[in-house]
């Protein structure tokens, strides 16, 4: 994938779109748990309708994420924000499981209530917090994983800027006109 220059931005763009759907739909469900929005609709109605989208988008994000990892496995593997991001996703999964099997088991009792009981509200707030962290850490990877040195052969480094700047700098901090930086949504 590294050598197929156009594949990288396309895969990354799909990753961003998938993240947008994951975060946006989970936020709606979390805000329902917290009693902020959609309070007139039963919780299960809001969640059943949206979590299908969340899961589908999560699969897309995971597949595109795995492709990005495969293209640069060692740099990602050694990158601290990347490791923290995986931990944060695991934490989000744990939060979901605790809600699903413990604190949210009695959903029938409060389904039409304006707000979920304390356990549900904690799960909702934690979910917003954790997924925000996942996105921040994901963006942080681009600024810390360093530049991918396997520059495609057809890119003429000399024509793009002073070589020493390129070697000393990291992806996102590259001066304009430098080789592709891995920055910015």
């Amino acid at each position: 994938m590294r050598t197929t220059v156009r594949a990288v931005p396309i895969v990354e763009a799909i990753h961003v779109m998938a993240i947008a759907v994951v975060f946006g739909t989970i936020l709606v469900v979390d805000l329902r748990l917290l009693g902020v929005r959609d309070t007139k609709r039963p919780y299960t109605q809001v969640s059943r309708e949206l979590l299908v989208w969340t899961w589908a988008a999560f699969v897309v994000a995971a597949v595109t994420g795995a492709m990005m990892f495969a293209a640069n496995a060692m740099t990602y593997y050694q990158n601290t924000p990347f490791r923290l991001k995986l931990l944060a996703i695991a934490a989000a999964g744990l939060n979901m499981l605790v809600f699903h099997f413990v604190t949210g088991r009695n959903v029938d009792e409060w389904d039409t209530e304006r707000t979920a009981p304390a356990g549900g509200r904690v799960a909702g707030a934690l979910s917003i917090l954790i997924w925000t962290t996942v996105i921040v850490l994901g963006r942080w990877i681009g600024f810390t994983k360093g530049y991918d040195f396997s520059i495609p052969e057809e890119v003429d480094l000399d024509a793009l800027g002073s070589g020493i700047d390129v070697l000393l700098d990291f992806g996102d901090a590259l001066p304009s006109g430098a080789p592709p930086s891995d920055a910015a949504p």
Partner: protein
Amino acid sequence: MIEFAEWLQATPFSEAIQAAGWLVPLLQSIHILMIGVVFVSILTIALRVLELVRMDQGFADVWRRFAPWMWTGIVVMTLTGALLVAAEPVREFTSTSFWIKMLLLAVGIASAIVFRRSLAPMVLAGDTAHEFSPGIKIGAIATVVLWLAIIFLGRAIAYDVEIWGVLSLSS
């Protein structure tokens, strides 16, 4: 334009953003979080126009639930986006993707305003039986595609030469 970009990049304001190494990734993170809020809001409104979701609610309820989040998200995205441009104006202004993104963004915002103005008072009053015309339904699909293109172009700014080749303003 490039002179303006170089001037802006050399201003103390731009240099301050660049110097704080954590600020650009933080702004980008907020930008992405808002993409999630705005895109899902637009998607939900569009799917409701197409009568695919939230049919237990009137269109007015769905609009009132999501429109404020959409507008707020767009404002926050514009602000964080403007600061990101101020931090790296040369990179943005020499990117073909950036200019096409700005054009599509203008179309997206203008069409949202036009759509809002076209909503009859009876629709906003909660006429649950209201059905949109085929033209509006096609517009709803086009809007979702438009915003996907805006997201793609945003990510593509970092890869202008790879995407556009000789059409890249930075080549």
